């Protein structure tokens, strides 16, 4: 069955790595984001690496009008339609503290935008009785920490949305994979101090595709973050509130 993948936030390095791997398998790729020049570069690259068809499409998590044309374009393809969501934004927590109005954007980019898009897409997946949604959230969404709790809360909201969507799509033959990456070597983490056990974007992409094949529900990538977060989630609140990790 021919696979079509909508990739939201395709300018991110994790998305690029995943697109390349999907290209190798001959998928059709709809690369969506705001920087059209950069998306076209990734589109040509994936075509060179074996994709059946690639297209760069405008997607802006803060502009609902950009959603429908992508879904319309995707439904023209025969076979299975899948969607991977890599969008999100993480301003410094200190900038947010200084200007709480920034919270709007973070929640829009990391939760409301992608959730709205997926809710528009879901009926088509149900109609076809197949298709996988990959939602990239973050270990930051597992517990609110002083360093990035606004970003964390937006990702946590998106994770709950994905859990519900999984509940819905599973009964229609579809599937949802929630991906919680730890530290990944991307533009977002470049130069941030205190990074450890940093994974390459390609290692994350490899994990994601393995999870898609095996129909996993929630994965941590690299895998050991499951255990790190298990510990962090179980620290009693009266201790956790005094910690700065």
């Amino acid at each position: 069955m021919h696979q079509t993948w909508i990739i939201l936030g395709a300018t991110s390095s994790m998305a690029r790595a995943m697109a390349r791997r999907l290209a190798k398998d001959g998928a059709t790729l709809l690369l969506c984001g705001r920087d059209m020049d950069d998306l076209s570069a990734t589109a040509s690259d994936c075509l060179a690496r074996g994709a059946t068809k690639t297209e760069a499409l405008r997607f802006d998590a803060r502009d609902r009008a950009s959603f429908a044309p992508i879904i319309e374009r995707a439904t023209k393809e025969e076979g299975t339609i899948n969607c991977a969501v890599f969008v999100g934004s993480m301003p410094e927590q200190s900038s947010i503290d200084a200007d709480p109005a920034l919270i709007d954007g973070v929640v829009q980019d990391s939760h409301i935008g992608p959730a709205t898009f997926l809710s528009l897409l879901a009926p088509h997946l149900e109609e076809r009785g197949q298709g996988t949604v990959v939602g990239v959230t973050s270990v930051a969404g597992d517990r609110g920490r002083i360093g990035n709790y606004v970003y964390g809360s937006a990702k946590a909201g998106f994770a709950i949305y994905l859990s519900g969507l999984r509940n819905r799509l599973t009964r229609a033959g579809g599937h949802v994979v929630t991906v919680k990456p730890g530290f990944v070597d991307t533009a977002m983490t470049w130069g941030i101090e205190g990074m450890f056990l940093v994974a390459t974007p390609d290692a994350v992409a490899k994990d994601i595709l393995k999870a898609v094949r095996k129909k996993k529900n929630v994965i941590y990538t690299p895998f050991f973050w499951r255990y790190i977060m298990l510990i962090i989630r179980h620290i009693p609140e009266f201790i956790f509130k005094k910690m700065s990790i």
Partner: protein
Amino acid sequence: MVWNKLTYTGWGRARSASGEVARPERQSTLARAVAETLAPAFGMRRSYGDVALNDGGKAYDITRLDRVLSFDAETGIVEVEAGMPIGDLGRAYASKGWIPPVMPGTGFATVGGCIANDVHGKNHHVKGSFGQHVTEITLVQSTKTRVITPRSGKLWKATVGGLGQTGVIAKAKIQLMPCKGDMMVLTERRISDLDDFLMAFDESKTDYTVGWIDATATGKHLGRGILEEGEITSGINKKGDGALEVPFNAPGWALSGPVVRVFNELYFRRVPTRGRTSVKPITDPFFPLDAIHNWNRLYGKRGFNQFQCVVPPERVDVLRKMLEKIGASHLASPLAVLKKMGPGRGGYMSFPMEGYTLAVDFPNREGSQELISELTDMAQDAGGRIYFAKDGVAEAAQVAGMYPDQGLWAETVNEADPSHALETDLVRRLNLRGKGA
């Protein structure tokens, strides 16, 4: 742009630099950053010495700009971002019947690095240098982005092989060459001494020819080794690449004199006396060491230096003296290469010239830098030159006169980069852009 304070090295790890590094992931980010902060760029840092280092200054890591931007199936011209590894480009198109006409000894080298060092391959005597197959370069020079071609005159010649001194190389178009498939017929045979080698190079008719030389051999075995001759053939390699890894620094004795002598003896005898022919995936003979990731760790924490020179064809006597000196030093490693070069070169500062090129790795041990220094003097006296992509040892006076067009180059790059913001450690060490150049 986010700057990350890093300590980084060249492939030989004998020299390191500390400074802030930015790693743009998009062309627009690179252009914006360079407009604000002009600094040299590096790729995979597969150059051995300090040509890609900027100690105490800033630098751009362009390895995230590694995409194919366009491909014309009629003409075989491909446009790529400068951070794309040349081996990836080879793998992407070989099965479609196209291949980069020139590939260096490692597939990890980026296209930007291949241009800036005007690299050569095992087919230099047939296809010339890498830069001769580049048809267009996008240079980011401070606030302006320029697209240059071979018709751009001085700026082109100062960019190809120009050590990144004319601007940050952001994209390039390369004329690929048609190929039958991605397999290679490889013939290996033993060569008993230097004269035998030189004769074999003269008689060789294959496109890809290179010699592994036993640099520990002395006396009547001086210059013995194995000649590898290859031709691309039809067939498609379906095997995935399972790479090995050197997980940690090897101890000091791993490449000591006696170990290397035994290794070289076995390596020489591996090829039967009557020779042998085999068909291999193209990447095996092209990039023999890429199968072992981080093989530079075999040299331990102190790293190693590679000496590579080329001497004019009539100066075989110097080549012989160099091999005698290297053999007597007991410092050579198993990695030594001899090759006959043609005249092909793409720019003012391109390394290739007609003659014989010798490359030998030396662990960074007592006496090795002095030995490299002596060999450098010998190359200079013989009218030859050393390869900047390898050097980490020479002094400014030792390279004077090696590159006849250096004055023209310096004039052009000083015009292109008047603030000298693109200088790297090697350019400063050898005073390449200075007065009297």
